[in-house]
């Protein structure tokens, strides 16, 4: 593997960094929303 992106590292690494952050954030957001919805429904079913 070659990580030497010279002379364009200043463009390539931010692009990879932003993509990694955005996609990880999307995964975390989707999973957190799923868990929230699941526990909310469980609480409602318990009280019903």
């Amino acid at each position: 593997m070659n990580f030497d992106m010279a002379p364009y590292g200043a463009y390539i690494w931010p692009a990879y960094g932003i993509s990694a952050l955005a996609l990880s954030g999307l995964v975390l957001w989707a999973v957190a929303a799923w868990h929230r919805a699941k526990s909310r429904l469980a609480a409602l079913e318990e009280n019903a």
Partner: protein
Amino acid sequence: MNFLFRYANPHQFMRLSGAVLPFAAAATALCLAAGLYLSFSVPPDYQQGTTVTLMFIHVPADVVAELAYGAIAVCSLLSLVWRHPLSDAAARAAAPLGAVFTALGLITGALWGKPMWGTYWVWDARLTSFLLLLFLYLGYMALWNAIEDETRAARACAVLALVGVVNIPIIKFSVDWWSTLHQGESIMSGKIAGVYMAPLLVMMLGYVLLFLTLWMVRIRTMILERRARSLMQKGLQ
């Protein structure tokens, strides 16, 4: 159509997607890991140098952004014409995912454009129509949140999605129809050197699988939220 209605009702969807999700998530992680390994194993391009590495995240983001909008349009059609019970949730669930992939396509494209074109942005047909796609996503999500009645919101959003779908072929063919700074179609025409095709295709598969996996999670979330709302309404009566 019977097949769709039989296997895409909320109960069946929860059962099937629950079984498929772990495999889809594993395949996504595997593809993205392999794609990243391949992306950093290619030699620099003779013209673009190491910036060719940006292709492996820029093109897949663009492809998924358009795919997600296509999915919203199909679901909207199913919602308007056949009143399919899952289609509204499926369309709504895909919008924020598509918006993020569109934003990523624009950002990675700008970061690729600066060293190659000398500018982050130019108002050419491809870039402008792609920016319009982001606005369509934002407008679609805003409209969902603006109308309180879910049935009316779904109908208005379905119409907006179907009107906006005309932008997808414009994005695709903009480089052929107008003189643009953006390069022309290069995957299907075989203009990309073989050494770059493998990482590009693996990353594309990884991005598509990531979208499909997250889409399933989002639809499942919306089904649970619907059940919760219905229970609350019953409790209030």
